[in-house]
């Protein structure tokens, strides 16, 4: 605890110093990064230390008279803090070079807010009081909002706007949830929630509100729309921190509310079902929409939606097992969820840093104009490839381990479940399988189109390997990914003990020697041995093939064979090639988005017409300015999205409805003050009538 508090203090001090020195760009950057790294090291050691200890609790009389300032560090909090600290360390290290580009955009501001952002994330995790939790939760949104809009381009401003609004909606739901509990216990301390046996109705209301509230932060469907807009807009290492770290706070919140705060009240099976269904939908839709993206960072952001879905599947199994009193399931579900949480933080952080390196080297995130980077920036390419393999759950990397546990949890749950539950779990398993297959496709696209084949633009041709700090940061995360994979047998027991501490139950055995075991489904897997075997077999194949090559010789032909046509760069696989193919089969899923957006637009139009009939007639004359582009150009600019018909995003429809309502209300104020007086008299009469009604 002391270590973490020290690190928080350090973050704040660093932030202020960085702000103060913001005129001297390099100094400000160095202060921010070094200080941030030191703080990250401190909080990492603090977090790791907390994993194996009992919870520490600290409470002070805070500045607010109605409530104390209370912190709680338990293993779950320790895990989250350690994960965020690891990411933060990589992000700061990366920033040492990456922030050079941000000198004229206010490096001091970045240093200040990024430090505050990390500190507020840690405080959200630690806070054990509803009021302070909410304060830090909002601060976290706010500080990250500043980081999102730091570029001040139109796109980033729009993305940041949507982000802040969604975060706030989520925040309000969380507030309602906490206050529902508080009004039953009469205190804002989590300690009082924890010991209160809520009535089932209240508990369910609180859980559902909290689930959707935190879900909005986590970016699950249907609250995902901010994620692909906001994350890409931030500096890449901040995106890594947001996508890898911040959205996990949403998961943390769900776990905290469900198991900790409502622990005494006990859960309901239906909560688990809700979480699983939302998780399944999020995972499939997330990856499907990711496939439609061209912007490397948007693609990664959509993948966060997918991975949050997978984490939710694990968590859902945990909640189900807990509510149905199946200790093994509860433990393995949570293990799967938490493991994937850690994994996702690592590989998504890595991938965003990789995307940042691409951006740094070429100045663009549009995959269509990249290509051929593997030769120019080999280290980045290897790191990105390993990250891609990990996120696609290819054994023996870490993504595979957590998804394996998720599958075991789901199948194990189905074995014990009744009729309805079996169908639910079958649905979840199928969704997870589709997600896995699509994720493979998606990362073939992301890696292949960006790094392989030939460069398709000058920018890509002139790319160069990024400076050492950035490389070290990426390599660090890559190594972590690999270690979390092949060392799973050593990591899983500690995560399992965290799950046990959440459930207040003895830990179930999940590993034996180098093998991971799944008791209920009687199955084992050993990433370490598998890795060795794969290495051996593949090495043998390589050796054999190379021996043959040596004997027969090897030549190089610079020309690509194009079935007799003259080769040209547009023949290469573009992101849209993949997208168009996917759309072929996944059309209905894109149609959902189109349909929803379209319905929103129709409703807003209808409302607008009825409310303000005279205003609308001019707007119909507008036509799509992109209509004149050729299909190819359109694809290069927008990805396959134009292949599906574009409808304005749902958020736009909402804004337009709000605006129309505003105009409609505004007609009340015609400008003639004589009618205003009539309103006053009307109000008077209304309330006098109310008196008659009351008496």
């Amino acid at each position, binding site marked *: 605890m002391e270590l973490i508090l020290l690190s928080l203090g350090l973050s704040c001090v660093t932030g202020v110093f960085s702000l103060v020195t913001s005129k001297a760009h390099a100094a400000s950057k160095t202060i921010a990064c070094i200080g941030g790294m030191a703080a990250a090291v401190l909080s990492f050691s603090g977090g790791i230390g907390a994993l194996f200890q009992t919870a520490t609790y600290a409470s002070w009389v805070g500045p607010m008279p109605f409530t104390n300032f209370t912190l709680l560090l338990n293993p779950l909090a320790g895990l989250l803090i350690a994960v965020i600290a690891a990411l933060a360390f990589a992000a700061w290290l990366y920033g040492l070079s990456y922030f050079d580009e941000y000198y004229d955009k206010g490096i001091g501001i970045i240093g200040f807010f990024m430090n505050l952002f990390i500190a507020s994330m840690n405080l959200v995790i630690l806070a054990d009081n509803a009021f302070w939790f909410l304060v830090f939760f909002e601060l976290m949104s706010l500080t990250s909002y500043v980081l999102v809009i730091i570029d001040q381009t139109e796109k980033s401003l729009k993305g940041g706007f949507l982000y802040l609004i969604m975060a706030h909606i989520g925040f309000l739901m969380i507030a309602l949830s906490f206050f529902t509990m508080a009004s039953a216990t009469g205190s804002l301390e989590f300690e009082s929630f924890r010991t209160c046996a809520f009535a089932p109705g209240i508990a369910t209301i609180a859980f559902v509100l909290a689930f959707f509230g935190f879900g909005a932060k986590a970016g699950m469907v249907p609250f995902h729309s901010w994620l692909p807009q906001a994350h890409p807009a931030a500096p890449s290492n901040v995106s890594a921190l947001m996508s890898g770290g911040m959205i996990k706070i949403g998961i943390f919140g769900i776990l905290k509310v469900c198991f900790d705060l409502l622990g005494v009240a006990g859960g309901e099976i239906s909560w688990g079902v809700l979480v699983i269904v939302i998780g399944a939908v999020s995972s499939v839709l997330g990856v499907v929409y990711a496939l439609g993206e061209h912007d490397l960072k948007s693609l990664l952001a959509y993948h966060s939606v997918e991975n949050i879905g997978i984490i939710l599947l694990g968590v859902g199994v945990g909640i189900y097992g807990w509510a149905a009193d199946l200790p093994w399931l509860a433990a393995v579900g949570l293990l799967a969820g938490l493991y994937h949480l850690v994994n996702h933080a690592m590989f998504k952080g890595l991938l965003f840093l990789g995307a940042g390196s691409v951006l740094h080297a070429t100045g663009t995130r549009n995959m269509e104009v990249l290509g051929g980077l593997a030769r120019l920036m080999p280290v980045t390419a290897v790191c990105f490839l390993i990250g891609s393999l990990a996120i696609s759950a290819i054994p023996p990397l870490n993504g595979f381990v957590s998804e394996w546990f998720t599958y075991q949890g789901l199948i194990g749950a189905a074995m014990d479940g009744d009729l309805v539950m079996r169908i639910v779990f079958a649905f979840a398993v199928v969704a997870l399988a589709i997600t896995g297959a699509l994720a493979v496709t998606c990362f073939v696209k992301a890696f292949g189109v960006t790094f392989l084949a030939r460069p398709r633009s000058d920018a890509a041709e002139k790319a160069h390997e990024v400076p050492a700090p950035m490389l070290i940061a990426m390599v660090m995360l890559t190594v972590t990914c690999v270690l979390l994979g092949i060392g799973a047998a050593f990591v899983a027991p500690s995560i399992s003990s965290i799950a046990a501490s959440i459930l207040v139950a003895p830990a179930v055995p999940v590993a034996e020697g180098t093998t991971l075991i799944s008791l209920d489904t009687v199955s084992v897997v050993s990433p370490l041995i598998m890795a060795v075997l794969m290495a051996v077999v593949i090495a043998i194949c390589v050796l054999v093939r190379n021996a043959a090559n040596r004997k027969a010789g090897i030549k190089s032909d610079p020309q690509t064979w194009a079935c007799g046509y003259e080769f040209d760069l547009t023949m290469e696989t573009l992101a849209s090639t993949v997208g168009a193919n996917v759309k072929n089969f996944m059309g209905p899923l894109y149609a959902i988005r189109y349909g929803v957006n379209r319905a929103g637009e129709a409703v807003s139009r209808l409302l607008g017409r009825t409310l303000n009939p005279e205003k609308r007639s001019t707007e119909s004359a507008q036509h799509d300015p992109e209509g004149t582009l050729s299909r190819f150009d359109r694809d290069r600019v927008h990805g396959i999205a134009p292949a599906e018909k574009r409808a304005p995003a749902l958020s736009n429809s909402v804004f337009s409805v709000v605006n129309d309502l505003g105009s409609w*209300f*505004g*007609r*009340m*104020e*015609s*400008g*003639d*003050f*004589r009618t205003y*007086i*009539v309103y006053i*008299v009307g109000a008077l009469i209304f309330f006098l009538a109310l008196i008659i009604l009351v008496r």
Partner: protein
Amino acid sequence: MFSYPLVNVLGACLIITSMMVVLARTGRAAAFLYSFQSLMLVGVLASLGFVTGSTELFTWSATAFVTKVVLVPAILLFTLKKIGKDAQADLPPKLNPMKSVALVAVEVFVCFVAVSSIDLPTALEVKPTLAVSLAHFFIGLTCIVIQRSIFRQIFGYCLMENGSHVTLALLAPQAPELVEIGVATDAIFAVVILAVLVWRMAHYAHTLDADDLCELKG
């Protein structure tokens, strides 16, 4: 002679005079009528003073005489003179006289009904006057609402003021003089300020038409 019926009769006169103020064709005529109507008000106050034996009310009527019968009409006439040719101060009202009278009648009726349901010992004897004062207030509001000329709307304000003055006298005959003086001076200040505003409007914007003052809207 000096008893509640007198108060009530004078109250009825108040309604009629105030209606005349509303219906007057020119601002000048309205100012004189208002002076006359204020005289009625002074009468009401004085007679109430006799009836209740409250000395405060005599002071009140004296101040009311000075302020309402003399000062306010003088200010308004002065304003009218100042406006002169800057803008048209006499504009036809939005509602024709027939409808206005009908509206006022309805208001008086509603006020009577409303007041009759109130049982307050202080106001038991003067219920009709209480209703009149309330109606008077609403006539003032009506004046503001139906007049196009903002100069004429000042009269609306004055009528409202008179109405509440009577109510004050009826319900709070024992209130300290200072309160009454506060209310009265407030009214004077208000009229002065309104008058200055009207003059400025005429001077700077060259219009006194309320329909022209609809540029600021929601």
